[in-house]
């Protein structure tokens, strides 16, 4: 089962694991990445992270990323939840779950999904610092490299 949600409210990590595990048979393992708002960026304390997105495009873009993961690995299910809006340090941002019969598929698909979400889902982050300043997060070259590596390895 594929579950994709783009939402302002928080999600319940345990409930998402249980929901995915309960919806599929043949699961041997679930890989997961949970992204959390950091409390500082380059040692500058953060008071909030603002996530903007492109509503008409976001879910279709994530569906395409999930479909690509399903094409590459033998997944029995996956869950992708991405929040938007204003989040405080420590709050959940994004949850990726990939369930498979074997752990390698589950873990590789998890890494792939978060790498591609970072570079192919239309979200933008703005950091608000405790000193009142704010700045848009710039795309990291490492993220492009991480995402591109899956093209080189693509089957």
């Amino acid at each position, binding site marked *: 089962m594929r579950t994709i949600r783009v939402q302002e409210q928080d999600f319940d990590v345990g409930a998402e694991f249980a929901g995915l595990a309960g919806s599929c048979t043949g699961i041997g393992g679930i890989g997961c990445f949970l*992204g959390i708002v950091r409390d500082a960026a380059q040692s500058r304390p953060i008071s909030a992270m603002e*996530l*903007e*997105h*492109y509503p*008409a*495009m976001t879910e*279709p*873009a994530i569906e395409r990323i999930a479909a690509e993961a399903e094409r590459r690995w033998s997944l029995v299910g996956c869950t992708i939840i*991405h929040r938007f809006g204003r989040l405080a340090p420590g709050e959940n*941002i*994004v949850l990726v779950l990939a369930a498979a019969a074997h752990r390698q598929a589950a873990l590789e698909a998890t890494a792939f999904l*978060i790498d591609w*979400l*970072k*570079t*192919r*889902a*239309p*979200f*933008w*982050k*703005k950091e608000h610092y405790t000193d009142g300043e704010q700045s*848009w*997060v*710039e*795309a*990291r070259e490492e993220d492009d490299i991480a995402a591109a590596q899956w093209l080189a390895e693509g089957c």
Partner: protein
Amino acid sequence: MIEQQGTKLTVLYFAWLRERTGSAREQVTVPEAVGTAGDLIAWLRDRSPGHASAFANPRVIRCAINQEFADAATKLRPGDEVALFPPVTGG
């Protein structure tokens, strides 16, 4: 020049492009000569000082046409929704 002979587009701006242009969404009619996404970005610069600032460095602008990622060479068609934004930073 008769405006109606141009190409009508909806342009969306995100993140700091939205802040600098001062708008999230604009309806524009561009001349026939503005045939690609790259042409549109060059054309938008003249709309305001804010637009000029937003599009000062076109190399850092990304775009999507009708909710699919596109590039500067992608052709525009009447009615297209063209979204312009900096590189994405979700996840």
